[in-house]
């Protein structure tokens, strides 16, 4: 469904990503792991269209999409849950969700989808009129994911969704990701929580200094002692 080939991302003199290639198959969870600065978020941002690749190609559903603007990618079914949640804090919870559904052509579909999201995340229904900035960290993460789901994405990109959350909330987030995959959404997950990510991932990729250090199935990587070494060393 998604193929990244020889992706290079450079900021001025700094090469954040130095030629990585990987595939994400339909209905899979692929976990992109690695230390801070390994190039995970940069890779995700370039797939979502927020950053233009310096070189390399990104193919989505058989079509080249590198360099397309984020609004086009979003309309083609790619949705990003950005690092740090980035909900619109001065807008109400309902307005945040409503904006997430901007790509629906039909207002009834959009309203129905918003209803589904509020059923899935009851806390959002309770707080519908509240300013999103007043939600707790975990609730904001739920809102950020729900906002991304509003567009009925086929490919969901998640950037550090468990960062800064309380342990039970972390568990809920990972359960949610697994159940989204079971509903048929393809997921590319960037995480720092290695054990929990590998427990739900079909494939794992460990990045170090902008290159792929190790890759394999989730179960393989979970057994591999090098993973935690590479992860901690970089």
């Amino acid at each position, binding site marked *: 469904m998604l193929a990244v080939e020889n992706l290079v991302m450079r900021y001025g003199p700094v090469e954040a990503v130095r030629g990585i290639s990987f595939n994400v198959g339909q209905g899979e969870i692929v976990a992109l792991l690695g230390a801070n600065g390994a190039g995970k978020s940069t890779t995700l941002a370039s797939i*979502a*269209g*927020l950053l233009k690749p310096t070189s390399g190609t990104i193919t989505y559903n058989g079509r080249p999409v590198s360099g397309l*603007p*984020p*609004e086009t990618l*979003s*309309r083609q079914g790619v*949705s*990003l849950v*950005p690092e*740090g949640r*980035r909900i*619109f*804090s*001065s*807008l109400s919870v309902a*307005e*945040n969700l*409503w*904006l*997430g*559904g*901007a*790509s629906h052509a039909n207002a009834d579909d959009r309203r129905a989808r918003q209803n589904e999201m509020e059923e899935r995340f009851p806390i959002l229904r309770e707080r519908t009129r509240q300013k999103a900035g007043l939600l707790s960290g975990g609730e904001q993460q739920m809102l950020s994911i729900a*906002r*991304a789901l*509003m*567009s009925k994405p086929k490919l969901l990109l998640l950037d550090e969704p468990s960062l800064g959350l309380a342990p039970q909330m972390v568990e809920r987030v990972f359960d949610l990701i697994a159940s989204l995959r079971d509903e048929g959404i393809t997921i590319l997950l960037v995480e720092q929580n290695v054990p929990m990510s590998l427990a739900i991932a079909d494939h794992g990729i460990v990045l170090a200094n902008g290159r792929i250090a190790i890759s394999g199935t989730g179960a393989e990587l979970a057994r591999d002692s090098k993973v935690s070494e590479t992860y901690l060393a970089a």
Partner: protein
Amino acid sequence: MDVFLQQCVNAISLGGIYALLALGLAVVFSIVRLINFAHGEVMTVAGYAIWFALLSSVPVAAAILLGVVVAMLASVAMERIAFRAMRGANVTSLLITSFAVSEIIKVFFQNGITARPVPIVLPAWMSGTVNIGFLTISVMSIISITVVILSLIALTLVLTRTTLGVAMRAAAEDFPVVRLVGIKANHVVALAFAISGVLAGVTAVLWVAQRGSVDPLMGAAPVLKAFIATVLGGLGSLSGAVAGGFAVGIVEVFLQGYLPESVAPYREAISLSIIIAILVARPDGLLPAQNVNRS
């Protein structure tokens, strides 16, 4: 007492005009970080459109509507022609671009029409007065205040009831994420300039109606006041722009009304000193913008 109340009406009426202009600046600034000094020239363009329409014997109501529509188009065209190419440039480059646009438009009217004011004749009833109790209020003040209130209500509805309006508020906080949910950046920016243009057009109608003439520099002075108002209210904050606009109008009218003859020439200096004093006490403005996370 009645003089004081009359001054209050004048202050609200002038403050409202500054508030609308300041809102026009703030709406654009909150989204593209551009302080558009050509905003005053959007007013000027609207003024000449009204003048031309009246000269061609178009009915007054249609001429006013035309002025507002032309202002909206002028503002959107300005973005499309001058500012879009500069998107993402630093604040200084954007500022210089806006000065360039402003100068070009001024020179165009100076050389293309005339540097002198051209008269605009509006129906006599608009320059009359009405007595409410012991107050004598000009019809123009009543019209101004009503128009300002209606404009603020209309803007609030656009910003809270339409997807693109809500997206504009979101974009003031975090533009990249607005694009991530599938809303086209160009649409949001175009709407901001359209709203800004309509506000400048409405202001132009009120301004022209009060002064009875149009000249190439007519937008320069009010937009400077509006700029002061946006800074006073908190740059990029919409409610701040309104508060700042009223504050500037109130200070100006009361200094004009109550300052002794001997210090009258220092009026502007005194009013700016008061504003500096407010900014010293509240450096982020009266109602600062809330946005925090901006890359």
